[in-house]
């Protein structure tokens, strides 16, 4: 098995390689899985996320596509309804905007309308990084808000592998968002039997004084903020949601109850982001445990600039995370 090969390499797999591993293992188990996207065969995808898979499984299982996002997703829907489990690789999630009807009106609704499952993974890189306004959209809420869709937002190799394996065993359309800035980060991964259920948050670190609930690259920012705060004796718990739908409500409720001082953060423009829902629902359900309001941290209301420092300044920084924590600590 490929897992063996990877392991004996004696270097931990990257976030992108973890995806390769999970997909490969599932492709061995399930012959109906195929991958469709641009530049997958020779290049292995723009983030090497499927490198080598075409060579291993053949061109029938890994297909290069015309630049036709609507048709790519439609391929996945029709083939999924027919009995395959397609992985549609959209490259950047920004390009999903050309396939929104297929995603929101079709893939998400077919099971409800026709009683027929649509097993389908739509993979894309996401998150704020280089490339400017057209390559840095944070669209999580568009998907999470849509009944019928599930959304994975892994922050480390282990979760990438465990979540993609779960996604490929359930008959549901899943939006699988991999943060660009994490692509090369190496880490442990589970063996072929480790599947991570959606809706199960991961406690990145335990703490005593307050909690940050977040996901994706913002987990890293939270860790940095926590490390700084630790220098002055403040102990922060960090919860990585790992999926935005299903959402681990139990973990959120427990966290709010435990600390009463909570920050919810992501890098999408704050207004209308999914953090609004997380905070307001958590507040509604745990009001009496709150020492003060949940504080949200998010992106500014502006497109993302191609100037790297401007882009970084538009999303949560270590500093803004620390400030938010200080706010909840002051209650």
């Amino acid at each position, binding site marked *: 098995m490929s897992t063996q090969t990877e392991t004996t390499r004696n270097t931990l797999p990257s976030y992108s390689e973890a995806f390769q591993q999970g997909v490969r293992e599932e492709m061995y188990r399930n012959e109906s899985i195929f991958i469709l996207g641009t530049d997958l065969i020779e290049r292995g995808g723009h983030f090497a996320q499927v490198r080598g898979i075409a060579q291993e499984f053949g061109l029938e299982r890994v297909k290069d596509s015309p630049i036709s996002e609507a048709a790519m997703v*439609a391929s996945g829907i029709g083939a999924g*309804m027919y009995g395959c489990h397609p992985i549609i690789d959209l490259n950047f999630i920004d390009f999903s905007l050309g396939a929104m009807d297929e995603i929101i009106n079709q893939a998400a609704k077919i099971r409800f309308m026709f009683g027929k499952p649509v097993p389908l993974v739509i993979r894309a890189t996401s998150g704020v990084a280089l490339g400017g306004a057209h390559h840095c959209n944070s669209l999580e809420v568009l998907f999470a808000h849509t009944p019928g869709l599930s959304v994975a937002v892994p922050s480390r190799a282990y979760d990438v592998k465990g979540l993609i394996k779960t996604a490929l065993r359930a008959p549901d359309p899943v939006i699988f968002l991999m943060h660009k800035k994490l692509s090369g980060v190496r880490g442990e991964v589970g063996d072929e039997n480790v599947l991570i259920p959606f809706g199960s948050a991961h406690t990145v670190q335990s703490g005593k004084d307050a909690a940050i609930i977040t996901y994706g690259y913002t987990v890293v920012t939270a860790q940095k903020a926590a490390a700084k705060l630790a220098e002055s004796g403040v102990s922060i718990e960090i919860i990585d949601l790992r999926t935005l739908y299903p959402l681990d409500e139990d973990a959120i409720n427990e966290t709010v109850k435990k600390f009463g001082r909570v920050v919810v953060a992501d890098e999408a423009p704050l207004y209308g982001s999914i953090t609004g829902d997380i905070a307001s629902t958590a507040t509604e359900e745990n009001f009496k445990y709150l020492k003060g309001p949940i504080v949200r941290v998010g992106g500014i209301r502006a497109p993302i600039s191609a100037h790297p420092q401007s882009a970084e300044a538009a999303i949560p920084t270590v500093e803004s995370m620390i400030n938010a924590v200080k706010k909840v600590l002051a209650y």
Partner: protein
Amino acid sequence: MSNDKEWKRKLLRDMVVIRTFEETADKLTLRGKVAGGMHNSSGQEAVAVGTMSALDPKDVIATTHRSHHHTLAKGMDPKLVMAELFAKATGCSKGRGASMHLADVDNGNFGGNGIVGAGVGIAMGAAMGIKQLGHKKVSVGFVGDGGMNTGRTWEAINMAVVNKLPFICLVDNNQYAVETFIDRVTGGRDIAKRGAGFGLPSFTIDGQDVLKVNRYVKEARDRALAGEGPTLINALTYRYYGHNVGEKGQYRTQEEIADWRDNRDPIDRFSAQLISEGLLSQDEYVALHAEVTAQINAAVEFAEQSPYPDLSTIYEDVDSGLLGAKS
């Protein structure tokens, strides 16, 4: 020969079923029985029946907002269709879809669609699935003339061409999109020429001739099964009624409608042909109508008697629930 006779009589019967169904449903819609209205396809029966008669029952179709004719021709019991129009729990989509969302996925009907052009993509995707699993089937995506101006339709066609998918794009070209005449909005005015530009065999045919439609679809299906890829068939047809029930509009003349109805009606033409060929007697034709009327009345009765969906079911079948299951 007797097979041929039976087969042709079946084609005629299927068209009469559609026409009778549509005219009945239209009146019921005007009486408020069909929430959200319905898109009557009367006049377009030969496209549906000609296509479906060239397919294997296990072939796949996906269609549009105007899909009663395709759905009935594909073999769905009129009871299930009528019940769905009534939004009853016994309808093919459990009353969730009504007129625009008729489906029976397990029997190859991948559904009507509220979104113009979307069915073509889904059918193309099914064709990819068929090829992927090595099955010997084809998939047909129906689309209107109006839908040939959505970009996604051409993306899907191109995807089918470059992957040599067993796919047929069937244009139910009734020449109007709501109130908009095709020539006003269709650059080049020739849909088959567009298809040729995208590299697939493309034909404009008389969509009122059920045997001609059958023949072109059969040839397209043969090519697809032989691994030669998709075909586009632009079937010229006409709808007698308004876009949605009760709509009239000044966008076309009464003469034009009368011309199509009186001179090119697919049912009249085909029944006259069968009678002249001695495959059907006038009496038999009358009997056929009576029989079909009874069948459709039974469908109405079934729909009327059926219960509405239980309101507690509105939460059901949104997703599998399996993703979150801790294993």
